[in-house]
């Protein structure tokens, strides 16, 4: 998707689909202002940080979308760990480790948004949570369900990060986003090992970013 994609239009309530677990889920995705009349803002961080970024609205939307998904993943894993479905110690350990790593990703993305003069998003992505993840959480009935949900979640996040590469106005952000996306891919690989779901085909095509990735600005 390029910067002329409809997803980048200002303030559009756009009905679209999010691929999740191989299913196209219709969402009423509120696309925030990702491209507008506001010129890119050159911001020097207020303190002693050496990082100076050019924070275009599009870049900030990409970063904040990623933040919203990182918070979402932590939230999901918290809910799962609070429940009783996961009894296998290995799975529990992975949930805890990945939850912590998503927190680290959130922190790094948040610092970057702040350095760029933006306002970091602080909530789980409301669209993805309400319309995509929450129904799956409510339907969980086994540890296998949990692993499959975790796989789908990590898969979506990895694809979202991958889709960001090449889209940033500030090219160094390509590196940051894929530094995170590669880790989500590692998470995905481990969930696939533990998942009993069919492997006859990839449910939502991890590398087809237009189909898998959450569009920048969704839910912000």
């Amino acid at each position, binding site marked *: 998707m390029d910067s002329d994609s409809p997803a980048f239009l200002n303030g559009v309530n756009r009905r679209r689909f999010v691929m999740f677990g191989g299913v196209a889920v219709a969402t009423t995705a509120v696309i925030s202002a990702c491209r507008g009349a506001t010129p890119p803002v050159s911001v020097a961080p207020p303190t002693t940080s050496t990082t100076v970024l050019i924070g275009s609205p599009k870049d900030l939307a990409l970063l904040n979308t990623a933040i919203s998904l990182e918070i979402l993943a932590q939230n999901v894993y918290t809910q799962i760990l609070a429940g009783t479905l996961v009894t296998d110690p290995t799975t529990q350990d992975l949930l805890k480790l990945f939850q912590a790593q998503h927190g680290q990703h959130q922190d790094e993305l948040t610092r970057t948004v702040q350095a760029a003069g933006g306002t970091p998003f602080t909530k789980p992505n409301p669209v993805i949570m309400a319309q995509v993840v929450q129904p799956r959480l409510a339907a969980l009935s086994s540890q296998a369900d949990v692993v499959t949900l975790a796989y789908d979640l990590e898969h979506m996040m990895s694809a979202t990060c991958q889709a960001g590469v*090449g889209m940033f106005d500030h090219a160094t952000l390509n590196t940051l986003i894929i530094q995170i*996306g590669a880790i989500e891919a590692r998470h995905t690989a481990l969930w696939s090992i533990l998942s009993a779901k069919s492997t006859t085909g*990839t449910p939502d095509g*991890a590398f*087809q970013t237009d189909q898998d990735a959450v569009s920048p600005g969704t839910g912000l």
Partner: protein
Amino acid sequence: MEISEASLRRMVRQVDDLHREGMKTVRDEIAAVHTGAAARVGSRRRFLRHAGTGLALAIGGTVVAAGSLATAASAATAPPLTDQDIAKFSESVELAVVAAYALALTKLHTPAYVAMATTFSGHHMDHAKAFAAFAGDAATATANPGVLVAVSDELHEAPDEMHVLSAAYDTENAAAATYLYAIGLLNGVEILGTTASILPVEAQHATALGYALGKDPDTDAEYLPPFQTTDDELTPATYPVAG
């Protein structure tokens, strides 16, 4: 964490599915271009030490200028790498990894490991073709000599399957680091997108191999790091393309 052949096979198929889905996109993008062991068996650091030796064996006298100590100086005077340079280099790395897996397969006998190596080798061949397309006339269709010798040394010395898998694990992690390095240099949207679609696959290969090796994230910080890094990246300065 125990591993079964069934889970390994399932995982390999999963990664393969992901890869093949991705390659559909890659092929489209290329077409557009043309039309327009665990902790117990060593670490990546060990691999890197061998890599330096391997490079010396590979290209003799030129290694002095291309060795790690000279890398910084070389980089300071070398012209900036173009997207085509990076594509050419990446093609050579991928072909070296393909050759390394061919050697690995002569030392693997457990069916799940053979399947894994065969599948991953196929991925790397596809990656090589993708990068070759971006390299255009600069493509060499030749394995990177330094990378090949470095990995081959590891494999030749490997006394058992776990050590073979460990060498593969190190190589896949190095490839992932290399593409992170590349993404920091590339400019073209198409090659950026392709590289971003390949890096996660290398990372997944490494994860799968790490799992097979029984690596534990509690005791091996390199196994499941919080961020992909460029640690152990392969660069054109350190591993020149043949010719």
